[in-house]
């Protein structure tokens, strides 16, 4: 991504903050008003002091004090108004952005999720967004208001006496120079720190998801050491960041103080030569006090703005990613799916495959007639799972077509396509919800009878023995179930969706021989009417299918009945058989 300037980057967020902009603008007005009230107080102070000096009376004192009080209260009310105006809309913008990035992430294809570390996504949806909100409703408003105030204030200082004004102006020059340097240096460190925070979140997430492995190998300390190293890097970055902020702070504090010191010198001289009244000098000094906070605030407002800039950048890195696998503009529909699935000269390669390697799927041709079930056989890593992913467009073909009832799957909306085709993955991917919700994931409106039937087919009777039966929450990723139980729930889930086509990736691998036989028996009733593509490694699973397709070197090299292939195809025998010609185990 090309580096955009700070302003251009910041501006990108505005379309998303449209609804809040009027109130933000009003908030700026309120902020400016507050500052102006604050700045005008010294004007009255001047008259007050002058009148006191010339033997003033209570009659002059009281109204002037009241004026000062009134202005002070107005300042307070303006601040109140500013906050009331900008804060709530800011939270709406944040919520809107959060919904947006979540929706976008769900929309982005699996290939995106494979590549992006999970913590980087999470940190974008949490920390970054709150940075953006704070900037919009606080940083931006004050940055503009305080900047203007400083300029106006500088102008007012000139009205006391041009020499005094000039002193302040000259003293502020280093601030501007430093400010520009800061902008350049800080940005890269801010980015680094946000990225490193994301990396840390990734490590945390993996350390929890992989906790079983870490414990089984006793690698808790090892991973903690790695984590510590990462946390230490972040610590270094944060310290560097703080150093940069401190670096600009000194100028922001020192410059005005120096100016005050010098103008005290000049002021006293001016008063002694009667070019300025004592009241004028007091008011001048009071004005500089009123300008102190806006000036000092520029430091953190600048860093906040730059933090927001990187946050916005990071946000748009996700939002700008094109959704490669999107719905067509005019999706076709299949009103009555028959369930004919055809792979027509399908080519597929992962984007990171070396150029000299042939396509992973290198011209797959295969037809599944309606109601037919086909077993897909091939050695580990030959591309079976990748082929199944093409059917529901978890990935898109890089050449050729996948057709459902003659319609290219890319011409259907994803929603519809995934209603017609339902999958059971090699790993169960369950959610920490009730058994019921998990099984009915693909068809939430299914009846109780359908649910029971699906569980019956998958031989998942064990669910009735769970503490709360179908309403038992099954724990994160179903980890409170046994491997075979998880797999059967995933199978039940696919079946319960009542699709025209079932795609089952090695669906019985975690089942014992007896249960496997039972599931197969029950599944057969479904498979008579439903088209099915079943990835299999074992002859027992192959029994489920009407025909077998053999995958080799990215192609379907043979299709036929199990017995035929066994008799005629060497590679098929190599993949599937454990017995030698004499019927003995090959070892």
């Amino acid at each position, binding site marked *: 991504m090309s580096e955009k300037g700070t302003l251009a980057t910041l501006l990108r967020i505005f379309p998303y903050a449209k609804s809040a902009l009027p109130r933000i603008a009003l908030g700026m007005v309120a902020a400016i008003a507050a500052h102006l009230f604050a700045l005008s107080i010294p004007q009255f102070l001047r008259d007050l*002091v002058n009148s*006191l000096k010339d033997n003033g009376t209570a009659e002059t004192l009281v109204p002037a004090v009241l004026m000062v009080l009134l202005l002070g209260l107005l300042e307070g009310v303006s601040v109140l108004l500013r906050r009331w105006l900008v804060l709530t809309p800011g939270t709406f913008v944040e919520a809107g952005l959060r919904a947006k990035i979540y929706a976008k992430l769900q929309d982005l294809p699996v290939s995106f999720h494979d590549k992006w570390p999970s913590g980087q996504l999470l940190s974008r949806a949490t920390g970054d967004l709150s940075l953006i909100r704070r900037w919009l409703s606080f940083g931006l408003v004050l940055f503009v208001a305080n900047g203007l105030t400083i300029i106006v204030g500088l102008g007012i200082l000139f009205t006391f006496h041009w020499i005094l004004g000039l002193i302040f102006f000259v003293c502020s020059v280093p601030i501007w120079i430093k400010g520009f340097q800061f902008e350049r240096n800080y940005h890269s460190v801010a980015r680094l720190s946000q990225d490193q925070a994301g990396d840390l979140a990734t490590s945390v997430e993996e350390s929890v998801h992989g906790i079983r492995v870490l*414990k089984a190998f006793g690698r808790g300390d090892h*991973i903690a050491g790695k984590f510590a190293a990462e946390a230490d890097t972040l610590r270094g970055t944060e310290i560097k960041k703080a150093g940069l902020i401190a670096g600009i702070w000194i100028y922001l504090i020192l410059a005005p103080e120096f100016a005050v010191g010098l103008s005290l010198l000049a002021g006293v001289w001016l008063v002694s030569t009667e070019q300025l009244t004592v009241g004028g000098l007091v008011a001048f000094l009071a004005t500089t006090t009123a300008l102190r906070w806006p000036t000092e605030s520029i430091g953190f407002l600048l860093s906040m703005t730059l933090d927001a800039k990187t946050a916005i950048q990071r946000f748009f890195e996700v939002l700008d990613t094109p959704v490669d696998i999107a719905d067509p503009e005019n999706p076709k529909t299949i009103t009555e799916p028959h369930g004919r699935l055809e792979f027509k000269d399908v080519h597929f390669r992962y984007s990171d495959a070396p150029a000299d390697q042939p396509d992973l799927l290198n011209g797959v041709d295969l037809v599944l007639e309606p109601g037919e079930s086909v077993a897909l056989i091939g050695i580990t890593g030959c591309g079976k799972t990748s082929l199944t992913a093409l059917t529901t467009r978890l990935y898109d073909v890089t050449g050729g077509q996948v057709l459902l009832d003659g319609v290219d799957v890319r011409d259907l909306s994803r929603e519809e396509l995934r209603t017609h085709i339902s999958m059971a993955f090699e790993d169960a*991917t369950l959610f920490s919800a009730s058994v019921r919700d998990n099984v009915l994931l693909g068809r939430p409106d299914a009846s109780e009878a359908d649910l029971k039937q699906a569980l019956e087919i998958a031989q998942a009777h064990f669910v009735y023995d769970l503490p709360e039966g179908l309403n038992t929450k099954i724990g994160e990723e179903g980890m409170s179930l046994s491997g075979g139980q998880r797999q059967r729930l995933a199978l039940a889930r696919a079946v319960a969706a009542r699709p025209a086509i079932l795609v089952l990736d090695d669906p019985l691998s975690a089942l014992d021989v007896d249960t496997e036989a039972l599931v197969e028996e029950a599944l057969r009733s479904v498979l008579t009417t439903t088209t099915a593509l079943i990835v299999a490694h074992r002859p027992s699973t192959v029994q489920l299918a009407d025909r077998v397709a053999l995958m080799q070197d990215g192609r379907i090299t043979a299709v036929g009945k199990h017995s035929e292939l066994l008799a005629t195809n060497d590679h098929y025998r190599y993949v599937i058989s454990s017995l030698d010609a004499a019927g003995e185990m090959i070892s």
Partner: protein
Amino acid sequence: MTMQGTSGEDRIELNKDESRVVKLRARKLLFSLIRPIRRRLIVSFTLVILSQAFRVVGPALIAYGIDTALPQAIRSELTPLYLVVGGYLFAALATTSLIYSFLKFSARTNQNVMFDLRQRLFVHSQRLSLEFHETYTSGRVIARQTSDLDAIKELLDTGGNEMIAGIFFMTFTGAALLALDPGSFGILLFSFIPLWFLTRWFQKNTKLRYRQTRVASARLIVKFVETMTGIRAVKAFRKEKDNESEYAGYTEDYRSVNAKVIQIFGIYDPGLTMIGTVTVAFILLFGGFRVIDGSLGIGILTAAILYARRFFDPMEGLAMFYNAYQSASSALEKISGVLEEEESVPEPEHPTKLSNATGHLSFDDVEFHYSNGKTVLPGFNLDIPAGQTIALVGTTGAGKSTLAKLVSRLYDPSAGRLTLDGIDLRNLSNLQLRRAIVMVTQEAYLFSGSVAENIALGKPDATMDEIEAAAKAVGVHEFILSMPDGYNTDVNKRGGRVSAGQRQLISFARAFIADPAVLILDEATASLDIPSERLVQQGLKTLLKGRTSIIIAHRLSTVSIADRVLVMEHGQIIEDDAPAALIAGTGKFARMHAAWRASLV
């Protein structure tokens, strides 16, 4: 209901006792974080005190300038003026350089605290048992370690400096005012009454809400993490819309409570400023009268006004600190809850030494149930002599993995004991236990990072040669070389870059390289094709020599390399004998084996 550890974490309203317990725990944690940095804090304080002291000198010098130096300057006596201005500039320089050092110094201190807390939380969650993680969910652990830590970072980043500087600034300003003009100081003191009321109001109205934000934000994260982890299923089963509306609900919960908090602060903060304004007006009025009757110099009044105004300057910062503090202490409540959780599988304090484990395992009246209470393994005895290869088979859900998890001490038996070479597993140090016993879990989990790193997890100091040897032994070396960067190829999160079978092979290589006395393989070949499985079995024959091993498999081909077969059903071992004897018999295993054998071609 108790608030022990993480229980009751989502509750907002707590009764007095609970609230006290939780607060105490949070405060304890805070103190324990501060203890190691107390020396640094003293330095910080010194820097701040000095810097603020210099800062406060300013208005006094101005007062002196106007009241003394000015009249003298009019009489062309310029020395006092030069002194005043010189003093002012010096004070300014001193202030800034002190503040600069303070900022740099305290940034390091703050980051050390963050580092310390991050580390503690990470190490502790790693130490907590599976039982905890199963119910607590990863999303919450992540929330605790991200958004809650952010709340604390916020406190340290802005709040810490502001508060220390602010309090000292106010103290010094107050003192200076007292010295300069006690009358004005009296008025200043009066302002504390409304300040106190306003602060009470703020406190009352935010207390529960901060707790709510923590809970709401954790919920957001949990949902987010679960969606992204299960993205394939989300897509395949068209869950996007439902998820979006559910997530929108959580977002709105978080937004509304957050908005409420911000709004309350939005009243509190200007409220403070206004109290300041009124105070200044009174000082002005009172001082003005005294100037009129000649009892007060105009310069003093100017300084008093400047002081009084400045006195309230840090109020905003203090309010922000208080705000951040409230938010951080809610976060600390949650974090301290996690830290309070005890390991249900603790490491012994005085471990028994085990030199060169032979691998003799023995179950003595072991009984086990998961935390939901149902007994999974009713009491049983089992002795596995050193060096024996066991095939553990049985119906799904029978309890095979559970038994394996007991051996690798992911859980402790609910009753009875499990010994390795006669030593209760509970008496072994983690280091020795893990060196002696290693399990390849049913779920082949790979971490993002290179293939080499993933294999080396079994032996962190492994050389590249050893890693390659392990990969070769399980037959995955060629495949690894075919990947774009060979052994350095990133396997992506959860090993998404490689196929299921390849994932199993890599996990297998990981166990291979660990070289333990007891090896447990839980369905380690379930996703492999037959040729690869055969290859692995060949490798196993050499690997298992001289080791105790428990091999769980539904594909009974493993039986051929086993010395002994255990058949499990409903948590009980119903058959236990040499494979040949069992196959020849008429029991369950004989039937299973026959059925399996018949399925082969």
